[in-house]
């Protein structure tokens, strides 16, 4: 159980924490989305890394190879990546519209604007 | 009509009446005719059940399962029979009175008033005939909800505040104490049916737990107005007088003490509780409520408020008598439900008639009013005598059984409480009678007035007469009460 045998997990956790930290600590909506993407990336790594065998190859039976990587994690993560892209695209689209509506993408300024609107009685 | 279908009819008649009342909302005369007709029909239906029940039958209807194993079921036993009889009988008189009162005062939303009133009676019938705790609880809550629009009839801020207290007290107590008590009973015994002798007899309960469960029940039944959960009753005085009569005499508080007696007799079982010291707190609390409420009534100048605290006090007579746990006192408790109902409705009718005719609400304004409204004040006197317990008024007889019960139970404190409170009753009622008849009018009224509208006066004369006559025809109530109290 050397450090290097679990190296990929260390990276996974580092990415996970870094991403989550950015999501929580940053008020800028775009930066939050970047953090979210990093966070999701850690999951890709979590799934993919154990599926790789040293010396293994793509799982196409050709008689020359005996050791194959597990293809299932790749399939799963392909799906997860698509989901991630969709989320990111939707998030960015929302940010664009938020900017059009509020002229800012800083969360605290948006909340201030809402509160001000509440005080003036223009809220929903 | 078979007894079983009579039970269902007793529920259906007031409900259908409410629907018809709404349908006839635009024709007031027709609407009132519907009210009176359903009241008459209801009394006839309920009366039809008396014979079989006295003969020892227990007509029952099981409809369908509300929860697995707990059906929506009705069963008529003597206690519920008596309660249903009182409520349905007083509904007729109350309707008559309402017609005079509501028209005389030009009240708004009369259709809503009559419809909710009819629904309240349906709920009362449900409470009276429930065969298990779940059915009972459902109708008990329904009664609270349908009387809420009645209590808040005027729709102004005072009504809203009164309604809040009313709903708050009744819902808080029933949801927080009564419901867990019922579920605990179910969890302990596997049943929620009412059975003579009680269902908790064999349950694995320590004495302390038994006392606790009894406390949950007694304070959970907020409608019984045991102190300190009595505050809703004075608060509900914002309602029009016929509603106060409904609350105090016909349905609501009567449902409270009815449920209290029913729980003691049919859930715990008097014999089972008799030897348990952990339930001794109940007579004490009830006795305290009797005296304390009487003292408050003595100090109240507002007539309806005085009557309200008088009710709080009288209700605890019932609880006290039931808590003595001997058959004689339980007979007294059950009879008192009926006698107090008749007497108190007379008093409220009188208070309402005074308000309708003279627009007076305070006791101190009543000097000499007996000369302008002789019928009303005569009826008031009869009602007061009944509540004090002076023969031949009906109240005397229930008190008589209670006093005998205290002796049988050997509870001299309870006897003293009844004695003191009788004096207090006299102290807060008789000055009104005296002032009304023997003092001259201190200030001339703003307008010259005589009696209230005929319908109102007729109603209060009927109830006053009933108060006097009841003892002579008391065999049916007495037989029912004896049958309920057991040997």
């Amino acid at each position, binding site marked *: 159980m050397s450090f290097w045998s679990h190296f990929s997990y260390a990276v996974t956790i580092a990415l996970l924490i870094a991403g989550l930290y950015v999501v929580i600590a940053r008020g800028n909506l775009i930066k939050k989305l970047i953090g979210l993407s990093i966070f999701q990336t850690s999951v890709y790594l979590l799934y993919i890394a154990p599926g790789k065998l040293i010396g293994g190859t*793509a799982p*196409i039976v050709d008689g020359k190879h005996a050791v194959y990587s597990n293809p299932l994690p790749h399939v799963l993560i*392909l799906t997860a990546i*698509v989901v991630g892209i969709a989320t990111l*695209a939707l998030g*960015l*689209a929302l940010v*664009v519209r938020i*900017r*059009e509506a509020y*002229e800012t993408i800083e969360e605290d300024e948006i909340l201030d604007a809402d509160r001000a609107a509440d005080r003036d009685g223009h809220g929903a | 009509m078979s007894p079983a279908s009579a039970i269902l009819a007793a529920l259906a008649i007031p409900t259908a009446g409410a629907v018809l009342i709404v349908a006839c909302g635009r024709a007031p005369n027709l609407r009132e005719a519907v009210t009176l007709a359903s009241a008459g029909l209801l009394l006839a239906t309920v009366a039809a059940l008396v014979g079989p029940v006295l003969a020892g039958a227990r007509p029952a209807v099981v409809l369908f399962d509300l929860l697995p194993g707990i059906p929506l079921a009705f069963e008529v036993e003597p206690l519920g029979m008596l309660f249903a009889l009182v409520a349905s009988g007083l509904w007729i008189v109350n309707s008559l009175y309402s017609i005079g009162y509501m028209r005389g005062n030009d009240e708004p939303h009369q259709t809503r008033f009559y419809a909710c009133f009819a629904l309240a009676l349906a709920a009362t019938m449900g409470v009276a005939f429930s065969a298990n705790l779940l059915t009972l609880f459902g109708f008990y809550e329904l009664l609270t909800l349908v009387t809420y629009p009645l209590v808040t009839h005027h729709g102004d801020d005072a009504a809203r505040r009164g309604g809040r207290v009313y709903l708050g007290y009744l819902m808080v107590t029933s949801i927080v104490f009564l419901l867990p008590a019922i579920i605990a009973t179910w969890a302990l015994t596997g049943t929620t049916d009412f059975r003579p002798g009680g269902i908790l007899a064999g349950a694995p309960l320590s004495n302390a737990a038994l006392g606790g469960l009894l406390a949950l029940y007694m304070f959970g039944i907020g409608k019984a107005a045991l102190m300190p959960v009595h505050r809703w009753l004075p608060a509900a005085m914002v309602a029009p007088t016929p509603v106060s009569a409904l609350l105090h005499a016909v349905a609501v508080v009567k449902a409270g003490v009815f449920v209290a007696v029913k729980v003691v007799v049919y859930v715990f079982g008097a014999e089972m509780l008799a030897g348990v010291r952990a339930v001794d707190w109940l007579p004490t609390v009830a006795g305290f409520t009797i005296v304390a409420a009487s003292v408050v009534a003595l100090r109240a100048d507002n007539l309806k408020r005085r009557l309200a605290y008088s009710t709080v006090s009288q209700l605890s007579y019932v609880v006290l008598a039931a808590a003595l746990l001997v058959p004689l006192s339980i007979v007294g408790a059950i009879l008192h439900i009926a006698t107090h109902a008749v007497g108190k409705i007379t008093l409220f009718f009188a208070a309402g008639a005074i308000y309708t005719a003279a627009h007076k609400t305070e006791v101190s304004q009543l000097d000499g009013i007996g000369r302008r409204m002789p019928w009303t004040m005569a009826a008031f006197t009869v009602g007061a005598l009944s509540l004090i317990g002076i023969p031949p008024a009906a109240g005397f007889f229930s008190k008589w059984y209670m006093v005998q019960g205290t002796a049988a139970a050997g509870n001299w404190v309870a006897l003293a409480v009844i004695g003191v409170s009788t004096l207090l009753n006299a102290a807060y009622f008789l000055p009104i009678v005296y002032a009304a008849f023997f003092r001259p009018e201190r200030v001339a009224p703003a307008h010259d007035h005589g009696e209230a509208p005929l319908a109102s006066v007729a109603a209060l004369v009927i109830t006053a007469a009933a108060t006097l006559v009841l003892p002579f025809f008391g065999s049916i109530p007495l037989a029912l009460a004896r049958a309920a109290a057991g040997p």
Partner: protein
Amino acid sequence: MRHYLVLRVIAKLVIPFMLLFALYVQFHGDFGPGGGFQAGVIAAAAMIFYAIVFGLPTARKVVPDRVAETMVALGVLVYAGVGLAGLVLGGNYLDYFVLDHDPVHGQHRGIFWVEAGVAITVSGVMLKIFYMFAGRRSSRDDE
């Protein structure tokens, strides 16, 4: 960028090959890395490249918004249609084995159509996303 002649000429040269490459990736999916996702993205990239060089309005004339949106829906329908075809032919939902006379051919056929559906949807989605972001009136201060 309309005025950069070099770019325009190169773009016109490269775009057909990009589309061709997309088709190659699409059909090579049976034997090596490739398939609908990648092909769809490459095809959409070709179109986006076109839009960048020749301008959004021109690109919208070539592939109107409506077409992109239709592609999104159509691809999903093709995919779901393969599933339903399996169902109609007596198998379970998404059953490839019953699509042809023997299971191996059936699987080929099923995967082919599924990948086609994926490619159509993915390129449609990519294009639509690009149109929606590029098509918004850009805001005032950071032009």
